[in-house]
């Protein structure tokens, strides 16, 4: 069965610090990988997605992610976080028409 793991349950950073959130997946077929963000009280929003081509994917709000096939990883990065990045971040795979999500990483950015 497909599964997604995320390395950290809760990450606390100061503004301007760099961010890297880990994601590993277990899936034998062609992978389509996603990062979603959920701000408090809001709907899940797509940050970025990878399904082919350049393994370094750029998304919205300055986020990027790198697909490393040999490591089954799709880590999310941002060079300098802002207080407004405080949210829950979910890595997900799309094996068919519906998602398998990781457990999420809560990011708290201190002003």
């Amino acid at each position: 069965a497909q599964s997604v793991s995320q390395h950290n349950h809760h990450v606390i950073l100061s503004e301007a610090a760099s961010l890297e959130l880990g994601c590993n997946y277990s899936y034998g077929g062609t992978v389509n990988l996603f990062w979603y963000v959920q701000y408090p009280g809001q709907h899940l929003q797509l940050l970025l997605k990878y399904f082919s081509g350049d393994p370094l994917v750029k998304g919205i709000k300055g986020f990027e992610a790198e697909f490393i096939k040999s490591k089954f990883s799709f880590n999310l990065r941002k060079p300098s976080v802002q207080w407004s990045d405080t949210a829950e971040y979910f890595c997900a795979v799309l094996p068919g028409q519906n998602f398998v999500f990781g457990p999420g990483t809560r990011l708290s950015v201190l002003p």
Partner: protein
Amino acid sequence: DAGVTQSPTHLIKTRGQQVTLRCSPKSGHDTVSWYQQALGQGPQFIFQYYEEEERQRGNFPDRFSGHQFPNYSSELNVNALLLGDSALYLCASSSTGLGVLFGGYTFGSGTRLTVV
């Protein structure tokens, strides 16, 4: 604006009761999926509806059932509620013709169900 509308936003029910949650998909989408997001966890797929039929189902008991209407809106029904059913229930819509990668997959803000 998410484009997907869910109602109600919050709901409190008693153990053993039944509940119905509603979802209107984004304009242009014909497929509706439901997810359960327990506190501190990622969303888990419940089932998907297309052409008024359940097309795919996750690992959820038969107490969870659904329906899709001709206008593509959908309902999620949960019978014999348990305390463990307390969660945020998310609806998502997509277009089967375009597929998720090209047509998009839009989530609603969810219904927060509390079972007491």
